[in-house]
């Protein structure tokens, strides 16, 4: 049997498995990136808390503690492999009685892992917004939270879009480590197909090709999105002249 024959055989017999693997991999990447982004926004906000001279002593201490905890979270999740996190969290969860399935646990792990990376991405986006924007907003009487929500975040997010997109691409690939808790994503599909047929190279060539197609397609889509968001604003003439 030639390599091509073996690949054909694998696709015929395990096509559905690979297809389901693509589905789960994309589910992991989308959910992980989405939830990671939302939680990362909050975490970045905590990480950036700094006491101001107007704060009471109690408020100052709270802010320092919150910022410290956020920092520890980020360091721990960025400083350990997601594969290790997955095992600890899955079995740790079972030990304290969380009745989760492998998939639910996988979604949880990739989300809280991405949160740590997103927090740093958002934070650098926030720090990239000129301090004058904050000063102008505060001078108009907007609170710290209002300034963050309506002035800084929208601009920080825009700054961070390329990095956020990159995180999504990374998640498509890195979700493969979740096979360690037998989440049935794409890598797991190859693992199953190869151990049943002993066609190791061919099984992994198939998923390599699929990963490559996914990452290329999505990075092109993200490029188009970036371009759209950066397109120069064209005022509607009708509105301008009726102003």
């Amino acid at each position, binding site marked *: 049997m030639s390599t091509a024959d073996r690949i054909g055989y694998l696709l015929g017999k395990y096509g559905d498995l690979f297809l389901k693997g693509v589905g789960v991999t994309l589910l992991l990447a989308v959910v992980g990136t989405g939830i990671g982004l939302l939680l990362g926004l909050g975490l970045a906000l905590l990480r950036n808390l700094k006491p101001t*001279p107007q704060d009471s002593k109690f408020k100052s201490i709270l802010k320092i503690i919150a910022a410290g905890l956020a920092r520890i979270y980020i360091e721990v999740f960025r400083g350990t492999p997601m594969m290790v996190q997955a095992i600890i969290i899955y079995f740790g969860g079972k030990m304290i009685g969380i009745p989760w399935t492998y998939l639910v646990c996988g979604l949880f792990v990739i989300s809280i892992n991405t949160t740590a990376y997103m927090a740093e991405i958002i934070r650098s986006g926030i720090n990239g917004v000129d301090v004058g*924007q904050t000063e*102008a907003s*505060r*001078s*108009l*009487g907007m609170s710290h939270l209002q300034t963050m929500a309506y002035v800084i975040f929208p601009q920080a997010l825009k700054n961070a879009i390329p990095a956020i997109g990159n995180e999504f691409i990374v998640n498509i690939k890195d979700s493969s480590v979740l096979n360690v808790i037998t989440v049935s994503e794409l890598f797991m599909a190859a693992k199953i197909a190869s151990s049943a047929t002993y066609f190791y190279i061919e099984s992994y060539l198939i998923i390599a090709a699929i990963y490559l197609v996914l990452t290329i397609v999505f990075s092109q889509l993200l490029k188009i999105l970036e371009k759209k968001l950066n397109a120069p*604003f064209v005022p*509607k003439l009708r509105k301008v002249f009726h102003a």
Partner: protein
Amino acid sequence: MPEEIIRVENVTKSFNGVEVLKDVSFSVYKGEVVAIIGASGGGKSTLLRCLNLLENPDAGHISIHGIHINDKKYDVDKLRTKIGMVFQSFNLFNHLNVLENCILAQVKVLKRKRKQAEEIARLNLGKVGLSDRVMFKASQLSGGQKQRAAIARALCMNPEIMLFDEPTSALDPEMTHEVLNTIKLLASEGMTMVIVTHEMEFAHQVATRIIKVDAGRVKENE
């Protein structure tokens, strides 16, 4: 005697051990246009930024209508709606168009209805001559237009006093002119203003009083 709006008493401020303001005292009365002049690095901008607590004085008191504001219990946000601030670098919100720049704080801080806020925004944008630019973003405006939009944005909050931090220092001479004319218009309407500026001619034309800040001290008070 006109009503005293701002009183600065014995204010001291240091950055990294360098004393920028040394025991500064002065007052601003209703309807006055005070020009603050002096060499670069002399503490003019720091003094102005202390007035709405963008900088916190290390010592001394700042009072608005007799209330100490650099006090922890004072609600700084509420104070700031009463004090309009215009910056050297304009600081228009980059992600919003001119109209939305003027509407945002009205809706979020003063809790005005959007429709009312938009009317007020258009009124003030008309006043600074930007009626035909309301849908433009900051990046599509000239420097002078940006600064006039920033002035309109501050006016929308109905401030009692306007602070200008070198409003024309980042502008070409031609655009300087249009911004100074806008400030003159406000002066003619009786707006109380404190203006940090290097434009001596303008200071003498518009200001009712000139304060010179030199090496952290108020030198003249004429």
